[in-house]
């Protein structure tokens, strides 16, 4: 990243704004988009999500909860305690719970059934904020990091897995709220932007693959490592919907729809985003 080039480009952008003709606006905008791309590329050098991963690994391996047991007996679908490649096959149906679960739901399940937490305690702090660390976010960072490079392979074998996918597919286009927004309002066309932010077309394989394999992510603008549950919650906030309940059936169904659509792509997160 050449700082002088970047400054020069920014000056070009500013000059174009002042001139204000349509052609130069297009030029300025292209330049601004390029600058954002350079910014994103520069971010890849160091990802603070590493800190969440390290804390999550510690949490995973340490005795926790009233029963003082670690996650060594927690089965994420690949056998007790196995984290390698587990996230790339989630969500999936778990016979012991009788339902389809995503990673966060399964972590809560293990905290309750094995570590002795109450359900309320296990899910009380799903998203971090100022002065408030979330153990779930750290655990998600660690577990997902162990699928880096692994190809997404989310099965639709069990009837409940098929059902979750079908429901997620419908929920994706469900219009509601004062603005009539659905997920599809922003994520069903290729090459569209909101302001200068590129929007993935999540109804295409390529779009779903690119988006899903780069969550969770450290959000520079928020200074937090954000999970996919957070991503869905915040999309619905902007859709003017109410508050999506953490690990709710709708959140799992939508995750199933998007994760399955991402099959075949190498998982590459925790990522870093603006």
């Amino acid at each position, binding site marked *: 990243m050449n700082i002088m080039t970047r400054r020069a480009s920014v000056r070009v952008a500013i000059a174009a704004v002042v001139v204000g003709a349509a052609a130069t606006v297009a030029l300025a905008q292209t330049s*601004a988009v390029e600058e954002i791309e350079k910014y994103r590329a520069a971010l890849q050098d160091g990802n603070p999500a590493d800190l969440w991963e390290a804390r999550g690994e510690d949490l995973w391996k340490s005795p926790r909860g009233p029963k003082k047991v670690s996650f060594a007996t927690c089965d994420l679908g690949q056998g007790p305690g196995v984290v390698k490649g587990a996230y790339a096959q989630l969500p999936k149906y778990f016979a012991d719970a009788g339902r389809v679960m995503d990673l966060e739901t399964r972590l809560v399940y293990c905290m309750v059934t094995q570590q002795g937490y109450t359900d309320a305690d296990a899910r009380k702090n799903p998203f971090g904020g100022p002065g408030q660390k979330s153990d779930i976010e750290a655990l998600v960072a660690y577990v997902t990091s162990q699928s880096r490079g692994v190809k997404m392979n989310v099965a639709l074998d069990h009837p409940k897995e098929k059902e979750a996918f079908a429901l997620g597919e419908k929920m994706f286009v469900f219009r509601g709220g004062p603005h009539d927004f659905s997920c599809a309002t922003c994520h069903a066309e290729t090459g569209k932007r909101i302001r200068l932010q590129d929007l993935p077309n999540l109804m295409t394989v390529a779009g779903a693959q690119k988006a899903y394999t780069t969550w969770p992510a450290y959000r520079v603008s928020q200074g937090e490592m954000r999970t996919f549950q957070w991503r869905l919650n915040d999309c619905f906030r902007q859709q003017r919907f109410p*508050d999506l309940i953490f690990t709710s059936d709708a959140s799992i169904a939508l995750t199933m729809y998007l994760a399955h659509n991402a099959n075949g792509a190498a998982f590459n997160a925790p990522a870093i985003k603006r």
Partner: protein
Amino acid sequence: MRKNILLWAGAVAVAAAVVGCATAPTDVEVSRRAAAVLKDSFNAKGQAGLDRLDQDETQRLCTQYANKPLPKDVAEMIEKLNLASIKWPADGKWLGDWKNGEKIAQEGRGKQFSDDPKGPVGGNCYACHQLAPQEVSFGTIGPSLYQFGKLRGYTDEIRKYAYGKVWNADAYSACSNMPRFGHSQILSEQQIRDLVALLMDPESPVNK
């Protein structure tokens, strides 16, 4: 004998039920189930109540046809329904202040559970549209509105169209991606007039 017939009838009914379970649920059944699961998956928060998941006729039809071509008669029905709901300004004045309109077009807050219910509430037009050329940070979900009035002519007909379109986009294009700003009480009549001025005032930067 009669008992036997009843037994047979019962067996046939059970068999039919089993077959019914084995076949995939219909599209309508999945849609109903999805709506019900959604309703159970949210908590009311701030100004966003659970009633936001109750679809009106337009939302329900647009959801139903989201992944398939919208039949012409359904599209016409939706447009008619929404056109009838437009509240035209009583004094017949279409244009407000384009400077206020620009602020409303820039403002992205409003109606989110994280927003102050007392405001501000904007149209967030730049999220999806190009408007004034000075603003390079615009989205592309909607068409460019640069030179909206200049290209179409500064006529009452176009002023009225612009007002109606902002009030209720579905009146002109069924299942539009654009919110129905007046119909859904997102923006006030005066705010919509200000946006019409941003689009239609010859002095507005949009028309420069």
